[in-house]
């Protein structure tokens, strides 16, 4: 299984940046809490659809192919890749939310430098989640491509 490593090394931030973080701390924290809420909505919305594609489309089609004695290794491989990508997305989303939670829990007025370091980690993890979603979409599109080819062979 593929897990992404996130670096935590961030060069020291400037005095100007520290001051800005401390001064805007309340607004930053409010914005982060809003982001958590919005992310939860998106995660549930996407998660339901990702799961539905697997359980209502990809898996039953492969079962039907086996029952009909039609061999299609490419579709089976795509199913396994899709299921793995969905699991990776789930795990990386949890890691991202944990990073965001740590960030919200920090008092940025007192610890602006630590806050910034953790902000960089949260950004990297968010980026990974975005890549995971693109990967899942790519595999769903691959399924369309393979099924279109199969339809032509029937």
């Amino acid at each position, binding site marked *: 299984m593929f897990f992404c490593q996130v670096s935590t090394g961030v060069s020291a931030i400037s005095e100007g940046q520290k001051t800005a973080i401390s001064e805007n701390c309340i607004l930053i924290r409010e914005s982060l809490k809003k982001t958590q809420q919005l992310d939860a909505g998106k*995660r549930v*919305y996407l998660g339901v659809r990702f799961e539905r594609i697997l359980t*209502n*489309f990809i898996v*039953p089609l492969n079962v039907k192919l086996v029952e009909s004695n039609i061999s299609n290794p490419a579709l089976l491989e795509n199913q396994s890749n899709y299921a793995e990508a969905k699991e990776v997305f789930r795990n990386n989303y949890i890691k991202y939310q944990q990073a965001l939670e740590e960030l919200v829990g920090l008092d940025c007025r007192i610890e602006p430098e630590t806050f910034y370091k953790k902000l960089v980690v949260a950004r990297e993890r968010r980026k990974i989640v*975005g890549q995971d979603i693109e990967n899942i979409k790519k595999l769903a599109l691959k399924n369309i491509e393979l099924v279109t080819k199969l339809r032509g062979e029937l």
Partner: protein
Amino acid sequence: MQEEKTRKVTSGGRNLILLGVLSTVVAVTTTGVSLAIYHNSGDIYLDRSRPGFLPDEEEVEQKDEDEQGGVYNFSKVEKLTAESLTEYLEKLESEIEAINVYEKPFDMEILSDDHFGIPIE
């Protein structure tokens, strides 16, 4: 006689207190374990019933529309034909379209320095 009766009452009272303490310890431990599992499994991040995480009215309406339309399931298709695969493809394409409602669901702007008013140096 009187002394023995008093001792029995004291012992009963002590047992009652012990039972109360023990029950509290068991309740606190099991609740703690449950919360740890809830948190570590990541289910906490999917729980929309948490205060402040309740779905917006618009989201609820969208869900109702989805439910009214019924959910497609290929396993209900009896025979594997070109027609059944055409329907499969149409339905799958509409699922992917639904995913694309969010063009960039986890875009980076929302955590950028600029968004938080942090000067870029």
